[in-house]
């Protein structure tokens, strides 16, 4: 079992996400992270899906994704073939703000993006291990809420979508 990042380029068609997730559900593969956004091309969307599966299964999954009529192209990568980031938000009570916390924020290149009367929100961008590490530290500072995005990723291989768009 290995970790893979799948990039799926799709038409903007209602229900496409449903069609895509059905393929994972059928094989009992858990989606551990998913993000959706526009791509470089107008009107074409890209989904970034993280899964843990085998070399054999990943090929079949990607083939099955490509068989979906409104999927233009699907690629899969191992971690060393993509540049990726995730964003994490941490909500803490104002009372936790002290020099110790400020030091932690600087140390992790995190930043306060919102300061309200009762709470502050800290943002950190990075890989899962880093944002997870910060989370464990912030537990000591009475963290109230935590959320992390799925990964966004661009591929290292010099391939573009253009060739699939005739």
């Amino acid at each position, binding site marked *: 079992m290995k970790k893979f990042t799948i990039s799926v380029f799709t038409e903007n068609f209602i*229900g496409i996400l449903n069609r895509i997730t*059905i393929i994972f559900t059928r094989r009992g593969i858990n989606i551990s992270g998913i993000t959706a956004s526009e791509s470089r091309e107008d009107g074409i969307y890209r989904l970034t899906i993280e899964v843990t599966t085998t070399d054999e299964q990943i090929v079949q999954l990607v083939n*099955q994704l490509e*068989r979906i*009529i*409104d999927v233009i192209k699907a690629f899969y990568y191992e971690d060393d073939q993509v540049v990726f980031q995730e964003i994490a938000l941490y909500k803490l009570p104002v009372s936790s703000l002290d020099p110790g916390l400020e030091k932690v924020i600087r140390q992790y290149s995190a930043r306060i993006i919102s300061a309200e009367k009762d709470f502050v929100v800290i943002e950190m961008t990075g890989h899962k291990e880093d944002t997870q590490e910060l989370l464990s530290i912030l537990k000591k500072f009475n963290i109230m809420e935590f959320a992390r995005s799925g990964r966004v990723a661009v591929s290292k291989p010099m391939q573009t979508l253009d060739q699939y768009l005739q």
Partner: protein
Amino acid sequence: MNDTKIRGAEIVIKSLVAEKVTTLFGYPGGAIMPVYDALYDYIDQVNHVLTRHEQGAIHAAQGFARVSGKVGVCMVTSGPGATNLITGLADALIDSTPLVCITGQVASHLLGTDAFQETDVVGFSMPGTKWNIQVRRVEDIAPAISKGFYIARSGRPGPVLIDITKDAQFALGEFNYTPTFKVRSYKPFPQVSHSMVAKAAELINSAKKPFVLYGQGVLMAQAEEELKAFLEKTGTPAACTLLGSGSLSEDHSLYVGKLGMHGNFAPNILTNQCDVLIAVGMRFDDRVTGDLSRYARQAKVIHLELDPVEINKNVKADVPVLGDCKESLSLLIEKVQPNSHQEWLDEFLQLENEEKAAVVSRDLTPTKTGLTMGEVVRYVNEFKDDDAVLVTDVGQHQMIAWRYFAFKSSRTQVTSGGLGTMGFGLPAALGAQLHDLSRQVICVVGDGGIQMTVQELGTIMQTKAPVKIILLNNNFLGMVRQWQQMFFDKRYSFTELENPDFIKIAEAYKIKSSKVEQREDLSEAVADMLLHDGPYFLEVVVAKEDNVFPMITTGCSVDEIRLS
């Protein structure tokens, strides 16, 4: 300007006419009523067949599609009408049958509110369709139908569902029909790689024991002639899958039988002795391969296949040749050397004789009391037309009919292969018959399956479709009973049936019928049935506890096929 506008409902019908749809199977209801109203003005152009159940409509459309190669069309209402299509959609998807199904939907302002007969059919049918769409605006109706037909029939065919809200059916719009030839995100025909063809030819040219397995892909690509030419040039023996039957006449000297669980002895055993396995338009279904870890491990595998998903899915291909097999076979024919493999072919004949002695003679010319399903098929072969279509349901009768029916021409078999849908047979036979009233359509069903869709006798009565129905009645759910006998200590848990008087049912539907219980009456009864002008129902009471052999039991390898 306004006078050129027509209702969305009429646009639906005009779009079907533009797609040259001549026969449509359906069932009206609230949310599709505007379309049925529009249809009333087009009955001279479109023959609508009112089935007795929506499942009957979709199976009939499947039967129609399978014998004609055209897109089967059915039309039903929202809610239960739409959900009754689900089994047919799943069946058509797994057997690659081109369908366009139109479902009515509640008005768009009611979507998501649990309105009367509202169901999320697009959601329901997503895993059972090649493509589906909900149309909520009149201007989107014709483009959706055009795209739907293109997707259903191109590449690896499959079912498409188009859900149209009632307000879109009522709304006025311009009718402008543009056939679809391209969808940007959809590549139905991968290009055949010449280098792969060359590699395949090289393997074939050096093969001592080549073996071809052909499936329904040959029929769909209309590559019957190319297959035959390839086999004849290379002298390669060939065996078919369930759905591939008929692609090659069984009279051909290189035809060596049928593959899989209840296929023939020789091709199953010799799959594990060939040196080059050439799979053409087939997908290595588990009913064909048995235990994959012991399937053709000794052979180099060449896989001619249109759908990239099928490559390496079950059996790893040493030489995958993606693309339409009509094209790849043509290219291969040029590159292969003429050859013959008589000794290898003799190995097939030898094993075939073993099967004949152990199984076939007992099935076809039995001496003990109790009619066999096989002897019924033997008489069918004696009296049927060469291009007669065999439609079967699912179970023992399906396997026996498939094993013994003499397939002589293309598109002569309709059965539920991948899904194994009981109840498929009778409505599918109706659909197959309505494609061509002059062609003999013989529907073989069991007493279990026929009762799942027996109401379609009403449609046969109303359309006078001259289907010849042969009910092989053993008073059991025979295939399940066989498994209970073999693998569950004969514990016949809920497989014995108390059956109605089937002849009375046929009579109630005004279908001419007869019943055979004695061997000496069988030949004449089958002959009479086939000569009858109009639908006919023949019930044959067969032995209660007969089994289908040969058999590859679950978990066994193809060469462990049992003769008893």
